[in-house]
């Protein structure tokens, strides 16, 4: 938690205070970009989607219910923006499928042959279905409750539990392999 009263900042933003909304951007920037990246697997697209999400939230700030937490409300908008961008990207993507995931292509370390844990995790994430990827990232990395994730993704809570289980199992395998390599 940030210790900042986000509801007050959001209320000020609702009255047109761009500085208050700027403070909210600073608080949530890292998480919004990580979540967008988990959906899009491309850094530039993730930044575009996160930016679009923040601008949409600014436009819709009057519809934010201050009795509820600000973070899930914002994250819902960012997730929608990322999914919209992915849909548009799919439409324009007429080029042949590449065996290397965009996340892997993104990292210069791969070209140097120096594969690190981060890259392996991104590659493992890229193999997961989007819903599993989102569930495990939101639950384990971002600290959302399963009920919040269910609402965010529009799926039953039981499905979230199952997705977290399967996603986590795949990622844990990668963590285990890296640990073993480090021990050798």
């Amino acid at each position, binding site marked *: 938690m940030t210790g900042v009263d986000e509801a007050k900042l959001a209320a000020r933003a609702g009255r047109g205070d761009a500085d208050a909304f700027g403070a909210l951007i600073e608080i949530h920037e890292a998480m919004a970009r990580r979540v967008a*990246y988990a959906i899009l697997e491309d850094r530039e697209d993730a930044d575009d989607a*996160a930016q679009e999400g923040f601008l949409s939230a600014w436009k819709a700030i009057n519809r934010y219910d201050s009795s509820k937490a600000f973070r899930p409300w914002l994250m819902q908008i960012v997730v929608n923006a990322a999914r919209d961008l992915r849909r548009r990207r799919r439409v324009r993507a007429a080029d042949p499928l590449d065996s290397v995931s965009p996340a892997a292509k993104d990292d210069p370390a791969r070209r140097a042959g120096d594969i690190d844990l981060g890259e392996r995790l*991104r590659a493992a994430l890229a193999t997961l279905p989007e819903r599993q990827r989102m569930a495990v990232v939101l639950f384990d990395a971002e*600290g959302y409750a399963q009920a919040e994730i269910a609402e965010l993704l529009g799926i039953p809570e039981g499905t979230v539990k199952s997705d977290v289980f399967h996603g986590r199992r795949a990622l*844990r395998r990668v963590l285990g392999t890296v640990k073993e390599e480090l021990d050798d």
Partner: protein
Amino acid sequence: MTEHSPFDSAPDAELGVALREALAMPFGGAFVNRVRARLNQRQRSWDEELAGWFWQGLVAASLVTMLAGWGLNTFSGVAEESDASASATVASQLLDGTTPGANVLLASMTASDTP
């Protein structure tokens, strides 16, 4: 540290840290500045601005309506009372056998003309 199982219902802290690092995006400050700049470029339209004052406006309008209702109720009550007292004065003077003065008659007529 205890071993974490995929069955656990609590967040996996070790995996969480590794994922946050793997998904971390560089140049946070530059990103914030970029969005802030777009925020300032994007002037809010009049309807968005109005919507920002919707609840305050609604509360103010309710207060004005309540005050107007109270005022109307109070002052029409006073007017009715004065009408009643004017009629009572004419009636009582006629019953007493005295001729009502011109001012009393005039007041009584004015009161009865008021809807």
